[in-house]
């Protein structure tokens, strides 16, 4: 078991390394001399100032852009291992510090969105299964598929107009109080809800077809008890690796939601850093995202191994 965990962990780290290295190379392949790009994007924008060679050289020296690519990445990595992700070009602050701020915002939203979507999922599946009827089935399907089909950037605008302006219940944007969190979390949660619901419902169908359910039924157990005590625990299993996969999707969704609601989170950090060509900031953010996704996958894997005896057997045999 320990060997398996170690192997998976090594693989996760390798993924993070490869992702950051690729990002680094791709960033440097952006057309234009990097120092010049930084100068115009970060410091001048579309101001009509003369760009002198002296300025370009100063930037290159300041951010260590004159060393070969691999050396620069090596420097970055050596720092990253000790928790030093360099200094943001735009703000002059340590990237680690800024990422900490951004992560707390995004982490909170992502966590709440996952919880909310799971609650919605269980509620919807429980309702559908408790009152079986063609109407319930169709309603469930419509709700689930509809929530997937609604683009977040459209839903977000509609919700702001409705709940922040017309009804005046919630704030429009920002990240200052619990009320600020409601709309972004709703948008993100609805986006995930559809998939979770369909997946759980399908898994329920399969779990209900298992032999031990028939035995339970034959024993005359209450249908509710069969549903929730015997079928549900088995049906949750396929949801676990999927939740991990969803993590990457969640970060993607966060990019849009944070822009819509002006939340200073990781997604906004990524886009802003890329827009202004703030290499250290972008690379740090990518590293964090890749690490989070890799760890989420690892956690799901381990949880599954723990929970599902069949998988344990299979791994043992392999």
């Amino acid at each position, binding site marked *: 078991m320990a060997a398996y965990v170690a192997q998976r962990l090594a693989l996760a780290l390798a993924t993070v390394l490869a992702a950051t290295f690729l990002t680094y190379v791709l960033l440097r392949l952006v057309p234009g001399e990097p120092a010049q790009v930084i100068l115009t994007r970060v410091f001048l924008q579309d101001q009509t100032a003369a760009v002198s060679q002296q300025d370009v050289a100063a930037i290159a020296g300041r951010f260590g852009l004159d060393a070969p690519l691999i050396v620069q990445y090596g420097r970055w990595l050596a720092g990253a291992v000790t928790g030093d992700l360099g200094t943001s070009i735009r703000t002059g602050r340590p990237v680690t510090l800024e990422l900490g701020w951004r992560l707390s915002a995004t982490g909170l939203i992502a966590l709440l969105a996952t919880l909310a979507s799971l609650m919605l999922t269980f509620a919807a599946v429980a309702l559908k299964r408790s009152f079986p009827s063609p109407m319930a089935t169709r309603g469930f399907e419509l709700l689930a598929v509809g929530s997937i089909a609604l683009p977040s950037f459209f839903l977000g605008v509609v919700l702001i107009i409705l709940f922040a302006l017309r009804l005046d219940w919630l704030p429009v944007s920002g990240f200052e109080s619990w009320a600020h969190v409601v709309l972004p979390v709703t948008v993100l949660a609805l986006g995930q809800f559809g998939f979770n619901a369909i997946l759980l419902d399908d898994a329920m169908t399969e779990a209900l077809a298992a032999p031990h359910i028939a035995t339970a039924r034959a024993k005359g157990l209450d249908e509710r008890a069969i549903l929730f005590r015997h079928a549900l625990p088995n049906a949750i299993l396929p949801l676990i690796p999927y939740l991990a996969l969803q993590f990457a999707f969640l970060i993607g969704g966060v990019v849009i939601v944070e822009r819509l609601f002006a939340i200073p989170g990781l997604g906004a950090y990524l*886009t802003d850093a890329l827009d202004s060509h703030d290499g250290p900031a972008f690379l740090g953010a990518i590293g964090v995202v890749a690490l989070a996704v890799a760890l989420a996958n690892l956690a799901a894997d381990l949880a599954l191994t723990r929970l599902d005896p069949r998988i344990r057997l299979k791994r043992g045999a392999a």
Partner: protein
Amino acid sequence: MSALRRSDWLLLAITALFALTIAYGLTLDPIDASLRNSLRAPGLDFPFGTDHLGRDVLARIAHGFLRDVGLSLTIIALSFATGIAMGMLAAELAGAVDRALTFVMDLLTSLPQIVIALILAANLGGGELALILALSLTGWVQYARIARATVFSLRERGFVTSARLAGGSRLYVLRRHILPHLLPLLSGLVALQFGHNILNIAALGFLGIGVQPPAPEWGAMIAEARPYFSRAPWLAIVPGLYLFAMTMVALMLTRRSSFRQELTTADPQPGPATP
């Protein structure tokens, strides 16, 4: 599927209405503009109103449909071909090649599609090439995972073993005996990816990546409409509804097809599209 259910009729009606408006809209010019007509409300002249440059929203919806569908199909074709080839290759050669390809797949799914698209767009400019590359680069992984798992599970089955014993080359066996089993399994994923692509293209259009203005694209249309939302809400609502309807139809079709099978058969990790 014997008789149509009521919800199928609804689906059919929506599709028909959708098709009719698009067909009509295609006869109109999506770029021709008269600034003096800008931000007209829906009416007789312009059934869906006009945008901030006085362009006909219906015409843009229709032409945007063609573009979105074209892009989505391109991405599917690329992902599909790459995915099957890579998946079968990994399973067939096994060992180090398999491990390497699996690692690449893990790597590509470790970053959100939107982020990959952002990086590519920074390199290639925000054009359609960056969009297609970004979505295909991540899109093929799901096909590959399913293909790989299927090949692994089919390999030990009788008909494959006997074909191999009969002296069929590796490629021959893959093509004649495994591919036919694989294709139906992937059809559900294709429909699903179609829906996702439309949403992703729209989302990237919203972030300013992909389709270049003034070429119409639904996501970009919604993004362009945001500044005028309080004055001309139809500008965002119409493309929003069309986007919703189209994705809905695509997903409903997925539900009807064999999608649920793959979720359970494709081990080790089921591959629902990273939405």
